[in-house]
């Protein structure tokens, strides 16, 4: 920090202290406070939105790639005994389906998702630090302004022996007021605009998101349901009736009855 900057921050710290103890009056600007509050809410929502949009994309990828690995693993089980069984064929079909889904997702969804959802959010979220800088600048200039006013008022109330002091204080007051007003008015005028523009800005993302979510579900369902052709006819009903669980339990029981499992 430069020397000038350091001096400024020390002075401002002093002003804050004096304001806290009530010796310097603090300017309250309701218009600004209201706009700032709205903006802060908006900022938070956007950041959440960005996080969730990213999480959603990542989860889609993680989901399909986990399915791909599961398919591999299931293949290993079949390989251990019988590579030509119906089950092994189905496992192959399943593997192809999930691989298809996974690569299709990367090919067809990644780019649109980025363009229509991630990028707008990213752009919007990139503005926030800049806007915040404007706000903190305004707050600092407000402190300068409050402090200059208080100095001037004191001189008016109790004139100094040095006749140049009051005009100088007045000049400083005018300067700080001009800077503060400029920043403040800009914020009050533009924060609502920024907020308002969110509607046209994000509007097209909504439809795109819904379409992509539908697409993912549709692709997933269609690709997977094709695998059923490789299942025996009764599998579906057996699943519905909970028979498959019984089979799993049954095999586990048989395994336990093996001598080599007795740990004798």
């Amino acid at each position: 920090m430069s020397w000038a900057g350091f001096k400024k921050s020390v002075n401002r710290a002093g002003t804050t202290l004096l304001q806290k103890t009530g010796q310097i009056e603090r300017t309250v600007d309701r218009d600004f406070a209201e706009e700032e509050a709205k903006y802060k809410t908006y900022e938070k929502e956007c950041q959440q939105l960005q996080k969730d949009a990213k999480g959603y994309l990542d989860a889609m990828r993680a989901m399909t790639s986990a399915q791909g690995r599961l398919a591999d693993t299931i293949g290993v089980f079949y390989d251990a005994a019988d590579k030509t069984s119906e089950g092994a064929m189905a496992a192959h079909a399943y593997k192809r389906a999930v691989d298809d889904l996974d690569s299709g997702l990367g090919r067809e969804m990644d780019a649109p998702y980025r363009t229509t959802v991630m990028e707008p959010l990213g752009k919007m979220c990139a503005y926030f630090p800049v806007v915040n800088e404007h706000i903190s600048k305004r707050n600092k200039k407000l402190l300068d302004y409050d402090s200059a006013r208080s100095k001037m008022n004191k001189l008016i109330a109790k004139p100094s022996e040095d006749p140049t002091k009051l005009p100088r204080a007045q000049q400083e007051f005018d300067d700080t007021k001009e800077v503060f007003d400029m920043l403040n008015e800009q914020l009050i005028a533009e924060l609502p605009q920024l907020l308002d523009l969110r509607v046209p800005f994000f509007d097209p993302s909504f439809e795109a998101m819904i379409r992509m979510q539908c697409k993912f579900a549709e692709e997933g369902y269609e690709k997977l349901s094709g695998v059923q052709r490789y299942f025996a006819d009764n599998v579906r009903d057996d699943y519905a009736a909970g028979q498959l669980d019984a089979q799993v339990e049954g095999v586990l029981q048989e395994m336990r009855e093996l001598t080599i499992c007795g740990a004798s």
Partner: protein
Amino acid sequence: MSKKSIDPEFEDYARRFTSIEDATEKLIKDTKAYTESVSKLFTHGAQYAQHFATVFHPMQSEYNLEGKHPEAEHTIQNVDAYEAALQELKSALAPELELIESRILGPAKELQGVMKMIRKTITKREHKLTDYDRYNNSLTKLRDKKEKTLNDEKNLFKLEQDFEQASNDYEYINTTMKNELPRFMVQATQFVDPLFHSFFYMQLNIFYLMLEKLHGFADGKYDVSVSGNDIAADYENKRTDAWEKIEALGLTQRIVSTSKMVQSRRAVSGGGPTSLSRSATSSTTGSASSATAPAFKKAPPPPPGANSTYSAPPPPYSPSASAASSAAAAKRAPPPPPPLKPKPKAAAYVVAVYDFVPQADGDLGFAAGDRIELVERTDSAEDWWTGRIGDRQGVFPGNYVQEA
């Protein structure tokens, strides 16, 4: 040099056993990864919808967003339904995940337990083999010794006995292994077969849940039958100049120096406070962007039960609450096909999803939400079923109702 015995047949089985061992571990790991990512998908989806809805609602003192942005009216009106739909979707997922936990992850862990026992036996065989080799080597050495002392003779006898014992032990365990490991391999396949099928249907069902819910929401509101590239293209078309306007705001420019800002302001306005905003953006927002806003394609509302494109939903995991407990009970009991989980004979009631106006004699009319006692049904929902409400009996289309 001591000799080490190798049984190639056993080694082969052992190698395959190890690969199944690894596979089981991977299965457990990836099943967990799968459930986690699915749960994340649904959670983030619901949260995204929630925050999006908030952004498209008036904030505090704002009012009438639709009025100000007529082109976004469609979105503004739909965000709440979207939020609700994704919220429901998220809650619908919980039982599915539970199913995976208890029906896939549970058995896979049990298999792991079984394999740990077998692994112990394999280790034991290794020990027996080591014993066998040791006695064998000592015995050979002693026999080959040219001049045996008395002690050696004594030892020889003892060693022979020990060797025989070790040899028997090893042979026994090795044979058992060679008999049973192949059986275990077959069982492992028999194990994974139903497990795979169950898991498959669970995964399918998760996609189906999404599909049904999202299509249900989008139906008639959004045309969702477009390719990924078209989605991006449509998005580009619908993009307004909102971004350019945001870029043009003074707020979104980095502050270089306030004194420069003051100077430029003075230069422009002579110090007047009026020229603050660089452009009168707000007034132009509405009109400018409405020009580019295309009408949303409205698909005609589908006939009731028109989800029939996906008319083959994965089978519901019918045994409801009671099944879970009875299945848990069955876990300990020997496995013969349990009487648990009867096919939903008991679900003799269905609930009307749509109004049905009788079109011919013998039709059973009803209003959406009516409970209908099933008299006769077919396997296909595309068929006419017979039902009774009170004392009226008649036929009705099966796709107008859902299971109670």
